[in-house]
Structure formats: C-alpha cells, structure tokens
C-alpha cells in the first residue's frame, strides 16, 4: 500500500536517505511539471541555493545582489547586531523564566532574530504590523519593551501594549486569522488615500509561519489583497517546521511561488541574513506604500529551539539538522563581519553583552513581581457598551468572592478544590 504521507520526501530532513517510493505522484513534464528530484530540490532550495536573496553569507562575507543591494553604515550594522543580541538574550531569559515556573509558556524566537529584526527595522513609524505569536523581535523594533510581552505567557493578560500607537497589533494565536485583519487594515490605508509615496505613504506587514500558509485565511488574504491592491507585505517566516510537521507537509514547492498564482511578486530571502531581509522588506514596503502591493516575502530561517516550552523536538527531528543550521546562525555572521571588516572594537561587543545582562535582569525582576489580576478582571471590557447580564454576573460573583475573604476560617474556604 503506498504511503499516504509521502514519508520518503517528508521524512527526508529527519530520517536519513530519502526513498523515492510514491513520489511518482509528482513526475511531470515541461509545462509547470516537477520531477521528484525537482520537488526535493525545491524543498532544499527553500533554505539554500539559487533564487535566494542573500547579502551576507554565513561566513560573514558581504555579497552583492542585482536588485536588492544595500548601502549601510557601520553604525547601522552595529545596531542591527545589537538588536539581535538583545532580543536573543531576552528570549533566552524568558525561556529560563518558564523553566523556573515564572511563566506558563514561552514561544522561543531563537534562530529567527535576523528575519524579525530585518523586517522590523524596515518598518516606518506610520506602517502597521500584524504579528502571529513569535514576533518578539519585531515587537522590539516597534519599541515594545520585552517586559510587555510577559503578561500573555504568565497569564496576567492577553496582550498589554497599545496596538495602535505602537504600530504593532496584539499577538494572534489562531493561525492565519491575522492575514485577513492585515489585508483589511491595508484596504483602509488605501481608502484613506495614504498610498502613493514610497516614503510618506503607509503600508501594512503581516507575519505568519510556513505551517499557517495551509490555512484558508492566508489564501483569502492573498485574494483580497490582490483584488483591492492592498498595501500589505505578507511576511512568511519559513522556519522549516510547524511543531512536528516539516515544510513538505504544507507544500511541494517553495512557498514564495504561491504569490505568482495571484499575480503579485513573491521573493525568497535568506531569513538568517539581517541585511538581505532588511533590504527585501524595505523594497516590499516601498512598493506597497507607492500602491504596488501586495508582496509576499518568504524568509527562510530555522526554529533553533522547541516550538514552545511545552514541545519536545527530539521526538521528531534530528539534532544533526540543528547543528547544520547553527553554521548559518544569524548573529554569528554579523559578528564575524564586524570583526573582520574592523567595524567594531572589542569594547562594542562587551558593551552589548553588559546591556544584554541588564535587560535580562530587568526582565526577570519585572516578571517575578508581576501582580496577579483580581477576579474583577474576568468581567473587564467584555463590551465597549456594558451588557446588563455580564454586569449582573460580575456583581454576584464579586459579592460571593468577598464572602470568602470575610470568612477565611469558613469550612467551605477556598482552595479545598483540587
């Protein structure tokens, strides 16, 4: 019986030599067809090889690109490096806080710093970002202090920052839902006549993962954005995995190609290269601000840690894969380049380390002293115009709740429940 799961191809990144078994299912001829080899190659190509925009190699060499070259000052380069170091450190600290029981969950960005800082730093103040749930690096670029992210994961709130003034919407956990919100918002930017100038115009950027691309909402976002010329950059962080599902469980061919089927450009960029990501995202945002949206960017990167702190990747992927990707580390290549090109003194690196330590300490102090919300929080802001039934439930429960406080010694006192 043929494997329904095309195990061969799919397990290839995991389980050694791919057997070609049922992939006859993809033998194709000239017009748009793909051979098994091409399919595998295509999948490989999502993380390396031709077509991928890269400006800084894993070895720290600057390379040029015909369309997406970037002139960048040493200071700017150092600050990109600094951002990546700081968000990585904040990420590691939050991960540790979860391990120590201070957070219920953490969603690591480890490995995706370049994709997120590159995209985040490309944004102009007037642009709007719609994140998924892993975009801590983009939040950083929008001026949201890492401490503001903690409430979601400690369970004290569901997003504490101001989604309008920060230009960074709240995290969206239901996969791909935000692709339609971003498209609608961008339709509004067009309705408001804020499109036309590549600098002063407005654009929207939407973040989602490789797994999310299979959801219908991504498709409807693409359809709407194309039909209404919405100024939205669809920024897909392809980190190769959707929990335990490798990329080829979502697609046969690189994801950036999806855009062509809708009639807008799709670009594949090395998401571990902060310079390339910055250059491509800048270009895409300028296109959108001038009215040439939408644009799809596939940033090829890697989820170097677990999906979340609840996940155990050893069950589904080999550490050899991780080792391979460590060679493409987004921070290391910038550090090497800064040193080699003599663009940064040892003091600079020491300074960043000190900053990172301070940030980590501040994060920890803030976290452990976060107040737990009271029972009234349950009923807070359910509606903009209060509902009598919710108000009545609030009054009744708060009265009931106080009765326990009043009678602490009451045999029915709280906490007897398991």
């Amino acid at each position, binding site marked *: 019986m043929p494997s329904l799961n095309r195990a061969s191809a799919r397990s290839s990144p995991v389980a050694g030599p791919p057997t070609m078994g049922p992939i006859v299912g993809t033998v194709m001829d000239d017009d748009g067809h793909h051979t098994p080899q091409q399919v595998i190659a295509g999948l490989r190509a999502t993380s390396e090889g031709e077509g991928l925009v890269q400006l800084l190699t894993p070895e720290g060499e600057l390379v040029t690109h015909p369309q997406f070259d970037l002139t960048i000052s040493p200071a700017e380069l150092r600050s990109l490096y600094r951002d990546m170091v700081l968000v990585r450190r904040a990420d590691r600290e939050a991960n540790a806080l979860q391990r120590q029981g201070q957070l219920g969950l953490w969603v690591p960005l480890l490995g995706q710093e370049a994709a997120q800082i590159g995209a985040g730093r490309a944004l102009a103040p007037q642009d709007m970002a*719609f994140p998924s749930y892993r975009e801590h690096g983009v939040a950083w670029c929008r001026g949201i202090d890492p401490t503001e992210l903690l409430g979601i994961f400690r369970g004290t*709130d*569901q*997003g504490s920052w*101001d*989604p*309008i003034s920060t230009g960074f*919407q*709240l995290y*969206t956990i*239901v996969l791909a*839902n935000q*692709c*339609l*919100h*971003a*498209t*609608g*918002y*961008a*339709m*509004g*930017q067009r*309705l*408001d006549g804020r499109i036309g100038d590549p600098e002063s115009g407005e654009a929207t950027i939407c973040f989602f993962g490789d797994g999310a691309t299979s959801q*219908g*909402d991504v498709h*409807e*976002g693409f*359809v*709407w954005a194309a*039909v209404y010329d919405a100024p939205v950059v669809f920024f897909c962080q392809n980190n190769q995995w959707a929990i335990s599902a490798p990329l080829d469980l979502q697609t046969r061919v690189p994801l950036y190609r999806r855009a062509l089927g809708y009639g807008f450009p799709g670009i594949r960029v090395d998401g571990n290269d902060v310079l390339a990501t910055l250059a491509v995202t800048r270009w895409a945002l300028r296109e959108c601000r001038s009215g040439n949206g939408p644009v799809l960017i596939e940033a090829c990167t890697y989820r170097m840690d677990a999906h979340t702190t609840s996940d155990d990747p050893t069950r589904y992927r080999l550490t050899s894969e991780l080792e391979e990707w460590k060679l493409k580390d987004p921070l290391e290549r910038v550090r090497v380049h800064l040193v080699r090109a003599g663009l940064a003194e040892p003091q600079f690196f020491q300074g960043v380390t000190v900053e990172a330590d301070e940030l980590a300490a501040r994060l920890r102090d803030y976290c452990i002293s976060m107040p737990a919300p009271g029972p009234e929080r349950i009923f*807070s*802001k*359910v*509606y*903009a*115009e209060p*509902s*009598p*039934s*919710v108000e009545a439930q609030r009054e009744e429960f708060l009265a009931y709740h106080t009765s326990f406080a009043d009678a602490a010694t009451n045999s029915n006192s709280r906490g007897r429940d398991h």
Partner: protein
Amino acid sequence: MSVMTQVSERAPAVTQTITLAKGLNQGLRAAMEADPKVIVMGEDVGRLGGVFRITDGLQKDFGEQRVFDTPLGESGIIGTAVGLAVRGYRPVCEIQFDGFVFPGFDQIVSQLAKLHYRSQGKLRMPVVVRIPHGGGIGAVEHHSESPESYFAHTPGLKVVACSNPVDAYWMIQQAIACDDPVIFFEPKRRYWDKASLDLATAPLPLFSSRVLRSGTTATVATYGPMVRTVLDAAAAAEQDDGHALEVIDLRTLSPLDLAPVFDSVRRTGRLICVSEAPGAASLTAEVAAQVSQECFYSLEAPVLQVTGFDTPYPPAKCEEDYLPDLDRVLDAVDRVLAY
C-alpha cells in the same frame, strides 16, 4: 455634497408606508449619511444591491469606496472587516444567506467577539454582520437556517433580530452606532411585510424587548420571523377562544432583556417561547430556564417551547410542517392552559 443632495431627495417623508426591506435600506442610508466611517461590504451588495436588494442604490449614491462587492468568501469578509475596524471604519457586512455564515464563523467567534476583551478596550469592533435568517421562502438547502443561538452563546457578541419594518429602520441604525460587534438578523420571509414608519416617533433602545400585545391568559415570547405568526395566533385565540395572550418581541437575543417577560409571567403564570430554530441548547431553552428560575413561584404551568425540530432543515415542500405556525402556537396555548 452631491451625495447629500441625492440622499435628501431620497430621504423618507415624515410618515410613509415601507416594507421591512425598504426600512433596512433607508436605515442603512441614514447611518451612512450620519457617519462617513460607515461602509457596506459583502457579496453582490454593490451594483446588484444584494440578492434581496437591501443595499439597492447605496453604491450609486455613496460610491464604490463606501459600498463595495467583495471576493467570494465569508472568512475574508469578516476578517477584512475586523482589519477595517482596527483602522477606524464601521463595516456593515452582508452575509448572503444564514447558511453561509459558517465559513466566517471562526473570524466571528475567535476574533470579532474577542478583540475588545483581548485588548481590554484598546481596540473597538463596531462591526455589524447582517444575516437574513429563517425559512418559509421555498428555498434550497442552506437558505433557511436559524443560527441565532450559536451567536447568543458567544460572549463578546451582541445579537439582535428585527421583526417589522419600523424596527428594521431604527434597529439597523442603532446596531451600526453601537461600538460592539452586532450580529443583526433579518427575517427574510418578512422582507415584504409593510408598515407605516413615522419618523417623529422615537425608537426604543436597541437592547430592549417589547410588549406588542398585552393580555392576561398566557405570555408568548418570540422574535424575528415568528413574531407575525404569534400575533396572528393571538388574534385568533382572542377571536375563537376569548384568550388574551400577552405577546413579547424579544428583539435583543444577546444580551436578553427578560425583565418584561418576568413581569408578564408573574401576572399570567404561563409562558410559551416560540422560535423556528431547532430547540436543543437554544435561545428558547435559555428563556425557559431563566423564567423557570425567576418566576418559580408564579408559574402555574411549565414553560412550553414551540420550535423547529432537531433535524436539518428539510426540503422546501416540508417546511410548512417544519415551521411553527399559528396552529402549533394555539395548540401550545391549549396545552399550557390545561395545567
């Protein structure tokens, strides 16, 4: 400016006879004149004016920026409306038929209903989702559903149902003016019912039920397309059997406004709750449960429910039997009085 003139030409006279469909059309028009942020979107709402013509003429008068057709997808309609609301617009989305709201259910339940709470008020969702509901028009499958209870069970949403042309005119404007997401149900088989609209008479608040007919024998609470059926039954009950039924149009399904129902049942001691939706885990069960608790000592008979059956909506030739009609209401009256 030209819009304004065109519109004022078309503005309703102080008193006029309108259909329920026209009431909605005029109400939408008034809401769009009152607030430039109000936009109308959905399948075929533009040039066609909607399959029921509720948005007839709006695109012509307000332009393609404010009244526009969408690609064909309900998740896309609701999801982009959420984004437009974040941008400061007040989208009014048309779902073509009740049975087609489900592809948009995720965006309604997971996003539209939750964003105000998630953001603790930093984001408002003044989105109206218009849904023609109910059967009785001899349609094919998925065109005669009554999905009200799904939404009434969803915290964060407000749900209303209009039953007559005058309410239609006012309630749609009130729903659009509301800063919360409102699921707005329209009784499609009553679109052509007529009534006289007097603009001088101020409307009731949106989230209030209304006693349509006072009586002493028993109370009948209902909403939407069943209101007319129940009023006919009440007339017949009086004429044929001398029963004085008190009839209450619930109008708001979430939050419910049951105070008038409690008052009524305390006087009549009997309640019948009528809806054409399947009865299991429904709004009529909610009303029955609340009244049974609140009016425990006043009830002289159990609360009876007259509803659609717990089956999929049947082929059109069966709908006369499926839908609660005057006779089933009267039969329930006999039964509730038999206690």
